[in-house]
Structure formats: C-alpha cells, structure tokens
C-alpha cells in the first residue's frame, strides 16, 4: 500500500503570530516554524500501518511550501516515512485554501497513492476542509475527522468524531482520510530516525512539474483576499483575590454583580 501524508509548515502556535503588513500573508520569516500539530498524528497513523506491514507499505510525505519548509520535512521524515516530495514555487505564495487544494491535488496526480492521510485542520488557517476538497477534486473517497482507522485490504473503516458522538464510515481505496489528535499519540523520533532522515530522498517539484500555471495559484489564483488585519486588543487582567476562606463567596458575589446568577 502506498500512503501519502500531507504535512505543512506553520508558525508555532505557542508564540505570537502575525500577518505581513504589505500583502497580509502569514508572516513566516520572523516566526518559529514547526510542523502543523495534527500532521504528526497523520504521520503516526501512517507509521502504525507501515509498522504492521514493513515490506508492503511505503510512506511518502507531501509538502507544499517555501524553501525553508525543508526543515520541517526533515523533522517529519525522522518519524519514519520513507521519502518526501516538496512542491516549491515562488508563485504559490499567497494561495488560499481552495487554491492550495488544487496544487495538492495536482501533485497527488503525479504520485501513486492508495491512501492520503492529513490533519483534520491546520493550526494556522484552520479551515478544516482539505480532505473534502481533495476528495471532490480527485473523485476519491474523503473520510474526514477520524479518531480511529482500520485498514483491511482495500477496505477502510473510520470512526469519525462528530460534535455529539461519532459515526462509522466505510469506503474503499483510493481515499483521503483526515485525522484528529484523539486518534493516536505521535512517536518521538529516535536518534537513529533523525540520522536516517538526513539521507532520505526529498524530491522537489515545481509548479510546472505538477502541471499548473502561475496565474492559477498564489495571489492571482486565490479565491479570497484579506482586506485588513488588526491585532485583537489584548485582554488585561481584572480583579484577583486570594482565597483565605471567603474566595468562593467572593466569586459568587462577582457572578451576581455581572448578572450570571
């Protein structure tokens, strides 16, 4: 089975993030960049399948991003995938999610895959629609929001986490499956994995390699545009009391004064 895992380099959500002042794209140059958090769950899901069938499963990472995305590609490779494909072209910068899905779909069209694994959402854009966008573009099954995945030959069963419980989904490969962090706990790369990652092949594809023209992507091909961006006014700390026996009563009093009780 050939598995492609989508990974994305994003600014660290644990630090301040911003949009660049001139074109409102995500400020990446000054940000500390990391693998989008749930992507690690998608890689883990792929490696669990690879561990169960070491000779029968090949895992390829696919990343669309600038040159420095190579840093997170190497980190992701240290978790065990066999190789990576990096779609890199300056024209892609500024693409919206809908346009990005066209780039990923075009790249997938150049690869062999039975199963595409990705995150249910990224920690930057957070649109949460990539699996369904790819399913629609590629004409394959899209099973989104998995908290459990079972593979039996070409038959896939997913437990999809929903807002009020879960659903059981079935489909056959080829398919795109997006996962939540409830699915697994990503492994820590071993020292051996980190060393091996440095030698693993990373193929670079340009826009023309995937068969798209510059005007179809980036700001020119984007389907939406940011008009303005303002930092949200920072919240300031309010009243703080130390419980010396009356903390609960003081809390009740505050809730009453704000008309919550």
């Amino acid at each position, binding site marked *: 089975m050939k598995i492609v895992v989508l990974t994305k380099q994003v600014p660290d959500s644990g630090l301040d993030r911003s949009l660049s002042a001139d074109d409102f794209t995500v400020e990446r140059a000054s940000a500390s960049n990391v693998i989008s958090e749930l992507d690690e769950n998608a890689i883990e899901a792929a490696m669990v399948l690879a561990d169960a069938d070491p000779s029968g499963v090949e895992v390829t990472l696919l990343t669309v991003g600038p040159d420095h995305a190579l840093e997170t590609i190497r980190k992701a490779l240290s978790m065990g995938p066999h190789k990576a494909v990096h779609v890199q072209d300056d024209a892609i910068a500024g693409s919206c999610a809908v346009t990005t899905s066209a780039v990923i779909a075009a790249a997938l069209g150049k690869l062999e895959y039975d199963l595409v694994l990705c995150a249910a959402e990224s920690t930057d854009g957070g649109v949460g629609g990539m699996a369904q966008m790819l399913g629609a573009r590629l004409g394959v*099954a899209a099973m989104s929001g998995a908290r459990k995945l079972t593979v039996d030959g070409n038959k896939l069963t997913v437990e999809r986490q929903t807002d009020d419980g879960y659903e059981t989904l079935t489909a056959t490969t080829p398919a795109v499956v997006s996962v939540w962090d409830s699915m697994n706990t990503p492994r820590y790369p071993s020292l051996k994995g980190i060393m091996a990652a440095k030698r693993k092949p990373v193929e670079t594809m340009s826009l023309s390699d995937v068969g798209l023209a510059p005007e179809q992507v980036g700001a020119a091909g984007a389907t939406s545009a940011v008009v303005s961006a303002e930092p949200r006014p920072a919240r300031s700390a309010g009243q703080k009391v130390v419980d010396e026996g009356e903390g609960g009563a003081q809390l009740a009093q505050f809730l009453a004064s704000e008309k919550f009780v």
Partner: protein
Amino acid sequence: MAEVFVVANAANKLTYEMLTMARGLGMGDVAVVVLGASGTADSIADNLAEYGATKIYAAEDGVLEEFLVAPKAEVLAKLITEHQPAAVLLPSVQEGKEIAARVAVSLGNGLLTDIVGLTGEGVATQPIFAGSTIVTSRVTKGIPLVTVRPNSLTPSPEAATPERVTVPVEVSDQAKLVAVTDRVTEAKGDRPELTEAGVVVSGGRGVGSAEQFSVIEEFADLLGGAVGASRAATDAGYYPHKFQVGQTGSTVSPQLYLAAGISGAIQHRAGMQTSKTIVAINKDDAAPIFDIADFGVVGDLFKVLPQAAETIKKSRQ
C-alpha cells in the same frame, strides 16, 4: 430579488444567528436550504418562520444521510448554480465547513470560514491565530460563501411566512463513495452544546481525576452551562475528548467562561479568549490564565467552587 441562502438542518441558536445575519445584509430575501432526511424541513419550519425565513428549499432524501457530506454538497452546489443567491451562509461546525469546502471546489468559488460578521458588500470578519488577530476578507471568485461561527451575534426574531419549495434530490455515484454505517450520539445529559452555551465551566489538570470532574459538572449545572475541559484534562482521561476547549478542540465564545484548575497554556487560551467574561480559579498565583481573567481566585477549586455554589443557592432561596 436575489436570495441569501442559509443552510440549516436544525432549529438551534446558530441557525437563528445565521438568519439574523442574513436578514441584516440587505442582499435579498432569506431562503433556508434544508438538506436532510424526509420530514426535516417541516419539523423546523415554524422556527425558521419565526426568524424571518421567506422561503424553505426542502431537499429531503435518505441518501443525504446515508453517505458522508458529498451528497449534501452536490445538492447545494446545484441549487446555488440554479438560483444564483447573493451569498450563502453555513454553520461553522465540522459538517458545515466540510460541505462548504466541497461546494467551493466544485463551483470554483472562494470560501471564508469561522466568520463572526458579514457586511452587505460581502466583507467578512474573522478572528484568526486563535483570536489574536482580526482580519476582514472578501471572496474574490464567486459569491460570498461563508461559515458562521456560533455566538457571533445575538439572534432576533422577525416573523415571516415561508414558501416551501421541494427540491428534487439527485446524487451522482461519485458522491456516494463514503457510506455512513452507524451514527452514535454520546449522552450529554441536559447540558447545552459546548460551542453554543452562554456559560461554559471548564476543568483542567488541577481537577485531578475523572471522578472529581463532578465538581465541575455540578457548578455548570447550577449556572445552566456546558462543561469543558483543557487538553491536559482530556489527555489524562479525566473527561471525554469531545469536550476539549482549545487549539485542537472546540473554540468557544460564551458570555461567561469559568476555568478551574487550568493554567492557561496558549493552546487553551486559543479556544476561549474571545469569551466575554473570563473567571479563573487556580492554586498557582502565577498561572497565565490570570493574565486574561476578569476575576481570578487564587485558591483550591475544591474549596472555592462548593462555597460559591452554596452562596448562590442561598441567594436564590
């Protein structure tokens, strides 16, 4: 006159918020698109009328429930092509976002998710980066196709008499690739939905065990609120994952958010910092949650919450 589509399958607060938002756009009449099993539209028609729906497109067929989102997206995309609405609003919940994603791709239309405001000119307001930045954006290809985040505005009723239009449901084989073979609703008792609740009481690692989460539940029930949990608490198995508030869980924006035993890591703040009023209880005086709390109590939640509950109960007598 053009129509504004509101996609709704349930008579809930978010539906009323979307109807209120759609009415305020001045782009056209408000038409609700119902995509569901037979009888769905009739069961909520009165509620939709109360909030100003002038038309209900009822696309009802079991096939819409037997397969994952693709059939619903296909029917909606066809309706949009046929009726050319001025804008389309969907609920910013998992299913709504996924239907919108498929519609955007199939129509080559732009998509803006998690919006909290929309103008008649099609400019949408979105909090991004966990609410730390507010952007305004517009769709540049096609019509404004947006998903609306719960608790974005206060719904107001405006009675109308909706016309019912039956929409024929034809679904391609391509949209039937993922079958839904089972649907399980996990018991949530009588509490409101986490993302819609006006009051959310959340517990963190400081709660200490699954059994002790009852102190959080009791306080939530006292205020008629929903229960939430930090990632540390769900990872530790104290509370089910679906109640997680934060970057990788639900984003909530209630009138009151009470965080008990939660330190306030940025992961958690990402999911709750747009709440109107924030209250925190934590033993650690230096917990970052206090930096954003309107009212903080440095103390043991197992002493503070029961005492607060007693005081509130007495005041109600």
